[in-house]
């Protein structure tokens, strides 16, 4: 599977770049929309949560910047995760036209979706880094871990999306269901709230949520410049590898039937 993706690396990277370039083709601002959307989002969170209402993030000293940054870190990563998962799930059905006639390996179509939204994530996270630099006057060293965690998070989404994408060929309900699941999943992850707000039992239960470790370690880096421990990184890696293996096994098991059904 990996080898096939590697062979198509040029197509995949070009396609991701094209996606960024042409998604807003025809509009006046064109490519700048890719920057404008996250920028407005970051600015809005900053204004609302540092000027209009304050929420305290535990373990931080400066409540004026902490919550907007906390929110941005979680939301931007989550949006990319949602986009990857949603688009990967429908990737085969959406590309049925190509799959019916092209002898291109199936996973390429899933990888191209994951890569395109990862590129969008890279843009929005760079903007967040820039914004942090501006409002705080500096960037914590622990930020070097951010790309690693994000890549692993996207890898986790890709693996999961691959499995769901294959299954969605046969059970089209998954493409719809995934959005409901993601809605619940969003509130089961401490993104719009702080985990200490939760009652102990619920919090205990929610740490089983695989997105939890990615989101919380990102937030700690961005808000408190707190390094992720090797154990945390190991867990992030294990989850991503596990999801990719699962996706691969589902694909291998059903591959021969995918194009028959499309």
């Amino acid at each position, binding site marked *: 599977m990996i080898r096939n993706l590697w*062979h198509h690396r040029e197509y995949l990277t070009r396609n991701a770049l094209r996606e960024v370039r042409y998604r807003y083709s025809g509009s006046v601002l064109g490519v700048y929309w890719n920057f404008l959307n996250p920028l407005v989002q970051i600015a809005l969170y900053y204004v609302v949560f540092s000027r209009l209402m304050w929420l305290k993030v535990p373990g931080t000293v400066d409540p004026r910047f902490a919550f907007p940054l906390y929110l941005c870190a979680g939301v931007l990563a989550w949006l990319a995760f949602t986009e990857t998962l949603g688009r990967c799930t429908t990737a085969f059905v959406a590309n049925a036209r190509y799959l019916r*006639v092209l002898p291109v390996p199936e996973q390429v179509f899933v990888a191209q979706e994951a890569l395109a939204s990862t590129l969008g994530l890279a843009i929005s996270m760079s903007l967040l880094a820039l914004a942090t630099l501006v409002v705080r006057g500096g960037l914590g060293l622990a930020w070097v871990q951010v790309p690693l965690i994000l890549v692993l998070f996207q890898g986790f989404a890709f693996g999961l999306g691959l499995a769901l994408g294959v299954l969605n060929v046969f059970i089209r309900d998954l493409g719809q269901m995934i959005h409901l699941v993601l809605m619940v999943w969003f509130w089961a992850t401490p993104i719009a709230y702080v985990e200490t707000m939760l009652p102990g039992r619920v919090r205990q239960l929610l740490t089983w949520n695989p997105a939890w470790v990615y989101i919380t370690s990102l937030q700690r880096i961005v808000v408190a410049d707190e390094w992720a421990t090797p154990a945390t990184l190991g867990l992030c890696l294990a989850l991503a590898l596990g999801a990719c293996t699962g996706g691969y096994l589902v694909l291998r098991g059903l591959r021969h039937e995918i*194009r*028959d059904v499309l």
Partner: protein
Amino acid sequence: MTRGDRTSPLVRLHAVSKVYRLYDSPWQRLLTWGSLGRLRPYREFRALDDVSLEVARGETIGVLGRNGAGKTTLLRLISGVLAPSGGQVLRQGRVVSLLELGTGFDPELSGHANIERSAQLLRLDEVLLRRRAEIAEFTELGDFLDRPVKTYSLGMYVRLAFSLFAFSEADLFVIDEALGVGDIFFQQKCTDQIRAMAESGTSVLFSSHDWSAVQALCTRAILLDRGRLLMDEHPTEVTQAYRTGLHETEGPRFDVRQGSGSTTFGDGAVEFLEAGVADAAGRPADAFAAGDTAVIAVRFRACVDLDDPNIGLQIQSRFGQVVWCTTTCWNNLALGRYPAGRAFQVRFRVRLNLGRGTYTLTTAVAENRRQPRQIYIWVKGFSAIQVTGPADESYAGDAALPYSVEAPDGRSAEGGPRTGVGVSPLFAP
């Protein structure tokens, strides 16, 4: 990409079958998964059944068959889009399917960008990007290559797709007419280019409903019926069989049997018993001198009650060209009625005014019409005969025509088949 050895086949299908599972509802599929395959609430549709086939370099092969015969499935298996349910598909060299190139296009992108995109998607980057300038020139689209493909006319779109196709340096091109792509290409007079590619040594495999295109372009043809490979022969025979089956209303009832060098097909109304070739004196023979008379007898048995069967004989050159043929109908010879089970025999006496070479004999029984639609039986290549040329090499060519040649001073020479000019003893009692 492995180019492989020049003599080995490009594509080899070994006992390939393709079975589609048809579920009435998605729940049934869940049931199959849930029971780990023990429950099978699906129906199976066998799109291809035990097909073995080889495609060699330089061949142009036509795939004939009715709708649903399995043509598209076969082509997709060969181009690698579908995986076989059973058997093996081995590919050596680059197989490019015509429909791929057009489908890979993104309407929002320019012609240039689409060339690049298709190249990367199909992993033809190395070839197509190297020959980019040639492709651009070949399309004759000029500045249009910088505009989005969605602004192209159908003709321009086809031009772009065809240029990619022509420059992909493929070993085998696959063209599926059933999906309409072939139609466009034929409408766009790309037949010449296909012919040119075939002549340059590239193999071409195309499916078609148009038997005349198959006959005109192909060196070989195959006939599919309900997923089975019925014939794999010279286009003349295959198109004949295809046309026979085509007119059957309740589906073709081909019954094809292949023996040593001969192929039999028909609707089962007549059984072929035997055939013999003899010289004018009645001695069995298979070698003749030009101008000799051959007596060819064919014997059949009626399997149903027959009214005026029509028996034909044709002589084909080794290139499959029909050099001569006739039928009892064309000669206003009514054969009468034969009840089921009765055998009947017809004898042809033919003077072989033919050039040097090997010829094969084909006979058929059909309904009594000038251009019969219903063919009871067609026995292709039941026998082969050898015709030797003149010992003195006084003439050459495909026919042995009686002739004379006169010099300026009035001296002349006569030649041709050895019985010479004049009345032949053939027609004597």
